[in-house]
């Protein structure tokens, strides 16, 4: 099965016509993963036996036209808990952790009869922008294996981009779906905060985290979001709004759409090749009948410091639960209970996770709380207001996803501040809880460039509609990488 020549709809049609069975499709997917992932190293755990058993069940029960995703393989970022299947968050501290329940998004995928083929690599606890912070392996960019795949959802992005899967679930706290999607030339969506349940998603920054789909096309992405979105009694921050069929309005017609381009997102911090691609995208949108104008988000330049204080503070609190007592890694040779905590945490967490816990603990401690945490939470309000002001007059915001194309493995890992600044264009979207999408907008030196579309809260339909129109007009998404001479 050549995933570069198919989409979710064509697989569904093939299964429906009995051109191939779900078992055949699943078995072939594993063959492909085993061949390609030697180079890419995107998977942490394969779920082969259970996946083949699940596919057999789908075949036995039969597929109807309404089962759009039934029998189709999917990959899951390894910070989403899967019942009975090892879930590590790419951390040593969860190296032996087998969850006793499924995340709500997993229950929804099971209800849609998708086949979970395995767990994908990430930066430890989703903290990082290169997947180099994984305790287990370094995933490679699908287009150039000396480059990072981005992060933290580097595993899902590289697996989809290298044709091992058509769909994967990632998580996005400050850009962790959109940035790797941009670096790998695929479509990644961070939904509105509250659109998708976080129940069973290993918590990092609880006021920012969202699960979202990573796919090769906009339509596939919309299909996936329709399957995982919705209110969940286990997550009180999920919205009770009805979930529309996100594929319903993908007709390519965006005449009269008002698009704003923030001047702060196109300044000297953005590499020339990226800015050029976005300028071309603006022309494409104008040709399609949209009005595109420059707008301003003056406080967005403070997004990175606000984010690192808030996300790290929430992380320092969320990660207190890893104490070596009830689950996860426990250090050997300890003298007393305090030792279990300190040694298990010090041996179990990697450096980046420790840095964030330290920054968060510092920001929340007596004497610094007002100057750091409270200040950041106030500036967050100003960033939210910036977006509200723009959306009074515009339907959508268009910007680059990243300031450059993928950087080299090992290039930035020892310089945390430089690494943090990579997220400058994606972070404000999480702070304001808005939906954001990255989709392919061109290439430079053989590496993909990502364009970001940002909509008002719960405006995913507008975002998908605009993304689909661009995709149909440009075809960048049809470009595929050469993986080890396989294509």
């Amino acid at each position, binding site marked *: 099965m050549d995933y570069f020549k198919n989409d979710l709809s064509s697989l569904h049609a093939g299964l429906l016509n009995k051109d191939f069975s779900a078992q055949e499709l699943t078995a072939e997917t594993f063959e492909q993963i085993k061949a390609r992932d030697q180079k890419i190293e995107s998977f942490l755990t394969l779920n082969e036996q259970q996946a083949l058993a699940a596919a057999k069940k789908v075949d036995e029960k039969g597929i109807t036209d309404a089962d759009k995703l039934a029998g189709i393989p999917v990959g899951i970022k390894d910070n989403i808990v899967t019942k009975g299947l090892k879930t590590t968050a790419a951390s040593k501290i969860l190296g032996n*952790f*087998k969850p*006793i329940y499924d995340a709500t998004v997993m229950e929804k995928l099971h209800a849609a009869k998708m086949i979970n083929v395995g767990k994908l690599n990430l930066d430890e606890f989703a903290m990082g922008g290169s997947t180099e912070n994984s305790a287990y392996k370094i995933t490679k960019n699908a287009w150039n294996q000396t480059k990072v795949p981005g992060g933290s959802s580097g595993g899902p992005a590289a697996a989809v981009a290298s044709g091992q899967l058509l769909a994967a679930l990632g998580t996005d706290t400050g850009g962790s779906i959109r940035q790797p999607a941009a670096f790998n030339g695929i479509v990644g969506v961070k939904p509105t*905060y*509250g659109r998708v349940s976080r129940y069973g998603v290993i918590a990092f920054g609880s*006021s920012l985290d969202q699960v979202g789909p990573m796919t090769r096309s906009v339509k596939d992405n919309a299909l996936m979001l329709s399957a995982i979105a919705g209110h969940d*009694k286990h997550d*009180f*921050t999920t919205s*009770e*709004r009805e979930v529309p069929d996100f594929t319903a309005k993908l007709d390519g017609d965006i005449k009269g759409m008002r698009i704003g381009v923030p001047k702060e997102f196109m300044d000297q911090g953005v590499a020339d090749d990226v800015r050029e691609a976005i300028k071309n995208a603006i022309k494409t949108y104008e040709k399609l009948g949209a009005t595109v104008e420059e707008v301003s988000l003056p406080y967005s330049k*403070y997004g*990175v*410091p606000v984010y*690192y*204080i808030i996300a790290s503070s929430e992380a*320092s609190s969320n990660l*207190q639960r890893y*104490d070596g*007592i*009830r*689950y*996860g*890694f*426990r250090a050997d040779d*300890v*003298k*007393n*209970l*305090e030792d*279990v905590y*300190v040694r298990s*945490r*010090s041996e179990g*967490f990697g450096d980046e996770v420790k*840095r964030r816990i*330290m*920054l968060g*603990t*510092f920001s929340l*401690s007596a004497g610094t709380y007002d*100057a*750091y945490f*409270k*200040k*950041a*939470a*106030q*500036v*967050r*309000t*100003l960033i*939210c207001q910036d977006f509200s002001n723009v959306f009074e007059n515009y339907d959508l915001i268009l910007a680059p996803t990243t300031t450059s194309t993928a950087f080299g493995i090992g290039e930035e890992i020892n310089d*945390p*501040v430089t690494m*943090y600044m990579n997220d400058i264009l994606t972070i404000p979207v999480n*702070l*304001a*809880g808005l939906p954001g999408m990255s989709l392919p907008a061109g290439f430079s030196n053989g590496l993909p460039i990502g364009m970001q579309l940002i909509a008002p*809260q719960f405006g995913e339909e507008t975002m998908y509609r605009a993304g689909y129109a661009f995709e149909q007009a440009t075809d960048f998404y049809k470009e595929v990488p050469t993986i080890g001479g396989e294509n």
Partner: protein
Amino acid sequence: MAITADEVKHVAQLAKLEFTDAELQMFAGQMDDIIKMVQQLSKVDTTGVPVTSTVAEAKNVMREDKAIKGTERETLMHNVPQKDRGFVKVPAIIDESEEG
């Protein structure tokens, strides 16, 4: 310096982490860079600006106070690293080597 090695050590204690001297040097340097970066927020006038702590739509969610069956004990104990007769086993809270 925005933060000293001693302050880093204090924060590590609060966070239940410990570092070797070499690690402490590295973390103090990196924390210093990070804190300098976040200190640019002090330039923003936030007089009278409320804090944003959530961007969720619902602020308070109520549910019926109804007893429901919990998870089986055996299932809950599944990932416990050391257990004994159905209990979680931990070392002594008081360090036995520090008598007196």
